[in-house]
């Protein structure tokens, strides 16, 4: 059975005012692919809190993001996040940021191209407004500049 995270979060933080999760009504926006995924430029973005080399770590309520070169080695990556146990992701960032796997899919032509750079932020941001009005538009600008066809978003 899938874990019911919304009620468990309420229990876990029962000393605080109940968190108001984003709930979107109606049919979500949807754009069908105009060409096969094997011809698409795919951008990878993870909210797992991944940093490249000496990039600064994330802080609480930090809505900044990091640009991660697509050819980054596994040993160039570190992880900081307060909202999930990060031991496995620190050992192997591909758990939440499958950069090595995406490079393989580019080589084997499952996807057309992996966009450079990939992006990461630390998803434990209390303010949904901050994400919607500050963080998301910057990522969208980056994706447009990179001419990405598809965004593969891996939350963590």
């Amino acid at each position, binding site marked *: 059975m899938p874990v019911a995270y919304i009620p468990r979060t309420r229990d876990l933080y029962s000393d605080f005012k109940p968190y108001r999760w984003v709930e979107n009504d109606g049919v979500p926006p949807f754009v069908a692919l105009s060409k096969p995924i094997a011809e698409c430029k795919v951008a990878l973005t993870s909210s797992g809190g991944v940093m490249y080399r000496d990039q600064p770590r994330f802080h609480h309520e930090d809505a900044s993001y990091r640009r991660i070169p697509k050819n980054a080695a596994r040993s160039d990556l570190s992880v900081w996040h307060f909202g999930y146990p990060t031991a496995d992701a620190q050992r192997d960032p*591909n758990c939440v940021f499958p950069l090595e796997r995406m490079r393989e899919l580019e080589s084997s032509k499952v996807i057309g191209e992996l966009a450079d750079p990939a992006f990461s932020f630390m998803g434990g941001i209390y303010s949904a407004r901050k994400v919607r009005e500050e963080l998301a538009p910057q990522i969208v600008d980056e994706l447009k500049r990179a001419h990405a066809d598809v965004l593969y978003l891996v939350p*963590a």
Partner: protein
Amino acid sequence: MTSALDITQAVKPPRAVFVNFPLGHQTGPPDNPELQRKIVIDAMRAFETITSPGTIVELPYVWDAKDRSWEERDYTKGWMPKRPTREAADAIEAERIARFRRG
């Protein structure tokens, strides 16, 4: 890509792929490139196969067929590893930055 089905159902992204793994393993267990690759390929395929807005495709992979106790335990009180103190976290950060700047 999601492992939190109820949150994804509330947020309603255009399309999603769900795998019932513990948080922090949305694209697979550590040092298991075969399973990681399957999950990521399934996600790429879903971009082509999902044609209806809001569809969430569930992947068939099982975290641990012999032990499902994580589903009861995760995200309950006492489950998160204790956070390091501010001083300890700052020391870890300083060491990390120094390591990369040394080259």
